[in-house]
């Protein structure tokens, strides 16, 4: 049986603090008050930081895929003996630091599992991603209820889903039950020094059942893949579905599973400071994303870009890797300036494709 531990109601910050010992980076959700609206983001644990257990506005994707990272630095230098001789020095940038993502939600954890496939299981593993991922431990907090925009259970996850998590925390009366789901999780719990919680596990199971019971039943998405394929060339359908889209890209940057990036060289190899090669988030909602050097753009219209996004998540990624590239966290809906609803698009496609597939 997997390891079970128990921590009292006020014990989570202490646990985060103990995990942070020894130079480990512990990303905890914190509420950032703002002049206009608060947002919950993951920040490295420091003593005195005020943790929250609210669902984060921004998923912890940055733990493995930072918003911007330096892949390498480069510098050209001239040989003082022979000025015609120059050498280009390339320096690879160091690998990831041991990290714990603490108290994320199962949908966030599911995001890591989704990213693993293209980055680790393809023809080539991405060394930068791999270095971070191997040192990452995911400690998730199961959800007690769903919300208006949550649909994790539509896409193979759920409020208590263990996919992608090394440890699952479930809130019960008087505290939290921690359950190790993987070897990494067991190690973490072993080292935590927390008391055994096996006797409280039935309470956690009951809480998890209650969470599932609070959800509205999920519609059947089995036909999604075939339906999207069938609807691909129906321009009128896609234009109507995306009429209100502003093509900004907020949906992709707040998505735990979106992983597109751009690579840019900045700086000059000749200058004393040299230059660096950056990898930064990119998004398929931007028209520059597909614009070719010739000036040709295969997806110049916003409906084509949104069609690509939805099709990638519910058709082409599942075709290549199995599961959906969507963990149902609903952040794309909540953070969209016009509340564009990806659930509605998929369901509409399924309905419109009836008879075609």
């Amino acid at each position, binding site marked *: 049986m997997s390891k079970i531990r128990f921590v009292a109601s006020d014990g989570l910050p202490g646990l985060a603090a103990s995990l942070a010992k020894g130079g480990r980076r512990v990303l905890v959700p914190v509420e950032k008050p703002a002049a*206009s609206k608060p947002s919950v983001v993951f920040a490295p644990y420091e003593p005195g930081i005020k943790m929250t257990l609210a669902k984060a506005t*921004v998923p912890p994707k940055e733990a493995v895929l930072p918003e911007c990272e330096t892949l390498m630095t480069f510098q050209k230098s001239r040989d003082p003996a022979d000025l015609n001789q120059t050498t280009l020095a390339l320096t690879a940038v160091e690998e990831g630091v041991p990290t714990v993502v603490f108290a994320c939600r199962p949908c966030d954890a599911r995001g890591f599992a989704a990213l693993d496939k293209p980055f680790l299981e393809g023809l080539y593993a991405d060394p930068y991603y791999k270095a971070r991922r191997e040192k990452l431990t995911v400690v998730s907090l199961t959800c007690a209820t769903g919300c208006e925009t949550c649909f994790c259970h539509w896409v193979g996850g759920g409020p208590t889903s263990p996919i992608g998590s090394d440890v699952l925390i479930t809130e019960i009366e008087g505290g939290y039950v921690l359950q190790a789901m993987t070897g990494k999780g067991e190690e973490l719990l072993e080292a935590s020094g927390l008391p055994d919680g096996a006797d409280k596990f039935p309470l956690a199971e009951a809480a998890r059942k209650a969470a599932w019971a609070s959800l509205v039943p999920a519609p059947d998405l089995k036909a999604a893949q075939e339906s999207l394929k069938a609807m691909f060339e129906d321009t009128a359908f896609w234009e109507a579905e995306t009429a209100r889209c502003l093509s900004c890209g907020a949906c992709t940057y707040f998505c735990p599973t979106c992983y597109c990036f751009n690579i840019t060289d900045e700086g000059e190899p000749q200058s004393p400071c040299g230059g660096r090669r950056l990898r930064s988030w990119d998004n398929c909602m931007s028209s520059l994303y597909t614009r070719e050097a010739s000036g040709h753009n295969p997806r110049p219209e916003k409906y084509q870009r949104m069609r690509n996004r939805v099709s990638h998540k519910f058709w082409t990624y599942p075709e290549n890797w199995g599961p959906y590239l969507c963990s149902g966290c609903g952040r794309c809906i909540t953070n969209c300036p016009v509340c564009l609803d990806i659930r509605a698009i998929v369901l509409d496609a399924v309905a419109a494709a009836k008879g075609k597939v």
Partner: protein
Amino acid sequence: MPVLEGKELRIVGFLCNWCSYGGADTAGVARAGQPTDLRVIRVPCTGRVDPLFIVKALLEGADGVLVSGCHPRDCHYSVGNFYARRRLEVVREFLPVIGIDPRRFAYTWVSASEGQRWQEVVQKFTAEIHDLGPAPRLEDAKPLLRLADMALTSLHPLGTGEKAALAELKEAIKAKLPELEFVIGWQQGYDAAHTVPLFMKTPEDVDKLVWGPLNVNNLAVYLPQFKGRKVGIVVKGCDSRSIAELLQEKLINREDVTIFSIPCEGVLDMARVNTELGRYTKIDSVTMDEASVTITADGKEHRFCMTECAQGKCYGCTTPGAVIADQRFGTPVEVTPAAHTPPELAMLDAMSLEERMGFWKAQMERCLRCYACRNACPMCVCRDYCISDARDPHWMSQGESARDKLFFQTIHALHLAGRCTGCGECQRACPVGIPILALRQQIARAVGKLFGGYQSGINPEAIPPLLTYAVEEPHIHERDW
């Protein structure tokens, strides 16, 4: 350089090829001694000096920036420096809001023959920068999180629009629809507490139209993409100002757009609503009376009074009715304009320069550069060709520092100078709640001050002040020093 390390400061000079660069040359030929802190960049005309050059230099570590060109009425290109004068004045008014001392930037006029004057200008400006010392860097600023005081009184009554003439509006749209491709309005979104844009093509679509304080979106953002096509749009007062501005800039044709309007009683600030509800909740129901919205979420009832929870922009709104419309419904509301500082701007006004820099640093650290602010802005019309993500020219780093992000916001704000109508969509759209509207409000205040109280998007016939000039500027001194 190493000899002078620590003694010399970094000053960037943008000099017009025809006058000031010649003036500096004349000074050199005359062996007029000059401080060596100034790095000269030769430009064809001060009209070529984009305000972004100045902000970029200052954000990236210059201690001072000097722009110098031909005397007014003496431009090689006739009017380049007239345009420059307006832009440079605006950028000087803007700098303090992001925590940069405006004394670090100066512009002046020096002709090619005025070698001696050039010497004086450089000596004086360099001495001033030395008095100020090295410029504080955003990187070193102490992050500051502060909340604006949102307790405000409004210039006009705020409410929920319960008695609005929605039925008449629907009838009118249905009657007009056969002539139009569609009419843009609002419908209920994924729950009862959100509305989303609606494109009405059939009478059945019109039945979905809703009116009230949840209609936060400014629908004018969609109009430029339909230029040349017959469309209709339902507007609040602030949205109509965006339409007036789009007309001013000829981005849409008046004869193509049919505008339906109802006087607006204010829109809810969903940011403040979500602070109480939580962002990830289940909405059970929404009910309204004349003064408030009651939202039941996760079984708990929350009452939001419109006078306390309207968007910041609503309190100072002087145009609850549309400034331009084809069909109007409901009773017009008269508003007497009065002095009014929006809450976030008032908060910044009360801070020191150092605090403002720390404030923006803390705010920008949350920015993900998702560009929701840009794409929700009805006046951001470059969109697919925005310099923030262009590689050629490569104006912005892909880096994720607060400085890069603040620079993007500065680009957005400066590109809206004299054009921003204050609809607040940038700030509303920001998923992480950065109060970026304050930057635009500062620009609008500067434009009002410099150009005789000019307000954007009021008169569709007016020319935006930065797209024109006056030979004699009533509110700009031609030469301060």
